[in-house]
């Protein structure tokens, strides 16, 4: 296979602690190698440019049923908003806030990303998720099945049967070819089966005699019992409401006393996603305010927790979450169209379009909260860039988010467009923050950190020899950074080069090759568990609407798998 030498770039690789050193990166047979190991490589001249590992997104909604509802029910998200197909790509690229699978793959690649963790897979719909993965070009995808409202999980955890829950979890990861344990509004989405919710972590789940707090703790124990690559990945209760920072801190505290147990270099036991949506004070929309500082004080002091920000980008977008009651609540606020899908025994989902307007006070406060979380963080290896795509904004706005993080001027520029600037400043600390992040910190937040937290840091997110040759080169000279933040945004929007698996995939911001992407999943070996087998048999016999043998993904529907093996029987 071909060899490549990326010469003379400024390399940022937090996994190796490389901070902008000028060096060469070698590529051979799809892997990073020492430059000396190459015989006759093609060279990419990266002089005056920034070199990082391919980007890793820890939380994004890109494939699966609710994403597809978002596409289907918003034809207006395409009209006059889709680009014309690029002549260098093989397929059309439709959509704006919820792009087609093709556009998703191309746009991530253009930004220099290579790995995306699909944030919520309803297990019953796993064949759908894998069909969409097949049609998403270039990027490797992992998908997390949701557990927080799953009847098996609720029943096992109610009785504190961690071992049984672990056996079931292992079975479900295999059945769905899933990656890790996702928890969305624990208990609340089951309550939504009756039109109810669990707003606080001690609210009982109707009929199941368990509270969200016990679900989260039980799943952390399950996760560490199994030693999965990733930790429990939690979307907390009471999302989006004034005053919810109290519930969030209570949720964070659930991780106290737990230490990570795994062979994958992961150091957290709990990942809290889109923290921005969970860091609000006040008790009404009138006195709505930021509590980012309170939440980040806790996060900064507890290193068994990681977070992603869920930055609001002030766009028209499409919200979608397995938090069914939240979407119902949202449609009552904006009166727009609302799709809902409750999934038997497992979860729920809702989808509502939403406009984050710079003219609306709540929206501009939300914008500030996300940035505060990032800028108040004392450990950017534990704080990651996301927009909870497409919930707080489309992932295609990451370059803008990076510009806001790197430049006070970029933030000021945006704040000038706010109708309620004074109120936004009063309700947040954003105006008092001068911190500007550097390229090393951006590399921590967009590749090294997320890869480590996902437990894939031995393959993705870094440039150590032996790792996948996924390399992004950006036209940014760290010794001569542009004074205009728009140039930073531009450089991160369209990378100069993306090498994926050793193949030149993007050049001058255009996709020039579509190398096969992978499905990354976790296969856990557990001891035989007759009771769990019996429970599975029973629920499928009586309560599911599909047969057990048709539920597990057929091998032929799994595309280009990369399996991560975990053996608990040793």
């Amino acid at each position: 296979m071909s060899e490549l030498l990326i010469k003379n770039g400024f390399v940022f690789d937090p996994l190796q602690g490389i901070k902008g050193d000028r060096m060469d990166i070698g590529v051979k047979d799809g892997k990073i190698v020492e430059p000396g190991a190459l015989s006759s490589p093609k060279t990419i001249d990266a002089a005056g440019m920034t070199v990082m590992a391919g980007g890793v997104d820890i939380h994004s909604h890109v494939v699966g049923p609710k994403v597809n509802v978002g596409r289907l029910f918003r034809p207006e998200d395409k009209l006059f908003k889709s680009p014309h197909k690029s002549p260098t790509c093989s397929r059309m690229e439709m959509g704006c806030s919820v792009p087609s699978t093709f556009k998703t793959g191309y746009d991530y690649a253009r930004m220099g990303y290579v790995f995306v963790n699909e944030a919520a897979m309803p297990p019953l719909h796993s064949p759908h998720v894998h069909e969409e993965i097949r049609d998403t070009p270039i990027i490797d995808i992992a998908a997390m099945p949701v557990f927080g409202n799953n009847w098996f999980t609720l029943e096992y955890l109610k009785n504190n049967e961690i071992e049984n829950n672990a056996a079931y979890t292992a079975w479900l990861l295999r059945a769905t070819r899933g990656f890790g344990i996702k928890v969305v509004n624990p208990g609340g989405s089951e309550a939504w089966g009756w039109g109810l919710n669990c707003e606080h972590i001690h609210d009982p789940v109707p009929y199941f005699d368990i509270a969200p707090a016990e679900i989260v703790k039980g799943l952390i124990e399950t996760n560490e019992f199994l030693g999965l690559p990733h930790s429990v990945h939690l979307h907390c209760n009471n999302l989006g409401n004034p005053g919810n920072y109290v519930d969030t801190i209570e949720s964070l505290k659930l991780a106290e006393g737990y230490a990570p147990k795994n062979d994958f270099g992961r150091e957290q036991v709990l990942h809290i996603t889109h923290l921005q949506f969970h860091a609000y004070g006040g008790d009404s929309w009138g006195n709505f305010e930021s509590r980012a500082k309170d939440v980040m004080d806790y996060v900064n002091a507890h290193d068994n927790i990681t977070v992603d920000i869920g930055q609001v980008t002030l766009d028209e977008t499409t919200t979608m979450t397995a938090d069914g009651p939240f979407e119902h609540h949202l449609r009552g606020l904006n009166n727009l169209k609302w799709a809902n899908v409750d999934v038997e025994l497992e979860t729920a989902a809702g989808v509502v379009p939403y406009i984050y307007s710079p003219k609306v006070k709540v929206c501009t406060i939300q914008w500030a909260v996300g940035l505060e979380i990032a800028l108040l963080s004392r450990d950017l290896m534990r704080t990651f860039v996301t927009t909870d795509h497409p919930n707080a904004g489309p992932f295609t706005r990451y370059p803008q988010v990076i510009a806001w993080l790197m430049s006070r001027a970029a933030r000021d520029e945006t704040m000038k467009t706010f109708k309620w600037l004074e109120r936004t400043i009063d309700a947040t600390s954003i105006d008092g923050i001068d911190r500007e992040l550097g390229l090393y910190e951006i590399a921590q937040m967009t590749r090294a950190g997320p890869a480590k937290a996902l437990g894939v840091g031995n393959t993705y997110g870094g440039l150590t020899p032996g790792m996948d040759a996924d390399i992004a080169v950006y036209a940014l000279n760290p010794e001569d950074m542009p004074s205009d933040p728009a140039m930073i945004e531009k450089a991160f929007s369209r990378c100069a080069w993306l090498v994926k698996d050793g193949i030149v995939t993007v050049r001058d911001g255009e996709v020039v090759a579509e190398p096969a992407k992978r499905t990354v999943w976790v296969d856990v070996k557990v001891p035989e568990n007759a009771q769990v087998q019996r429970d599975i048999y029973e629920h499928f016999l009586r309560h599911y609407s599909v047969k057990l043998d048709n539920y597990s993904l057929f091998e032929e529907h799994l595309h280009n798998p990369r399996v991560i093996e975990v053996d608990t029987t040793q």
Partner: protein
Amino acid sequence: MKTVTLTLTNPSELYIEGQNVTPDNFAGKKAAEIAALDVWEGKQKGPLGKYFTVEGDGGATAEETKIVLRGDCTRVKRIGQQMTAGEIVIEGNADMYIGGWMKGGKVHVKGNVDSFCGIGMEGGELIVDGNAGHHLGSSPRGEWRGMQGGVIRVAGNAGNDTATFINGGTIVIGGDADIHISTHGEGGTVIVKGNARGRVGGQMVKGDIYVYGTIENPLPGFSMVDEVEQEVDGETARFVHYIGDLGERHPVSRGKTVYANLYTRL
């Protein structure tokens, strides 16, 4: 104002999509440049001049450009789409999307038009001397921000689904209207001088509808409140006033619930 005359001399086998036929696109162009603009017949992109003879140059700006279409444009779509200023006169019939997403200027069709004309309109004026098809002044699929402004006048009849999701602007239909007027409306005014078949104002939040003739099947969600005298389209008359759709949500303004209004002429 400068006039560009397009005469359809070499009709297409299929339909022509003529979204480039707008004063905005013609402005600042010579006749030959206009003839070189793209139109589509299915997947075939061809120059406008393949189908039309072009006489006259465009004005300096859209505002100073008038376009006259001659010949049978029954199979030409999208004339005047997204125009912001200037004038278009279509001497006979035209097909779909005439004046679609218009922001300003004026389109005058002397014959009939098909469906989706004046769709997504934001401003300007669309005049049709004949009949209009379905979805007149309606919103595009899935778009809850329908007609925002401007005026549509149809001398004849209109099909179904007039003014879906209307938010502003005025539509005047000289003849009859088929089912569904201002469905999901949240503003704007529709005046039907003939009869309406039914489903007038269904799921409507706000806005006004006037029907001079009869409504064959009135909705149960509209309830009579009083009789009023009003000036409508230049004439004063007495109307029975209904509010609705009572089944729909309604905003509250200064402590009072705001309903949609339906007026039928006495």
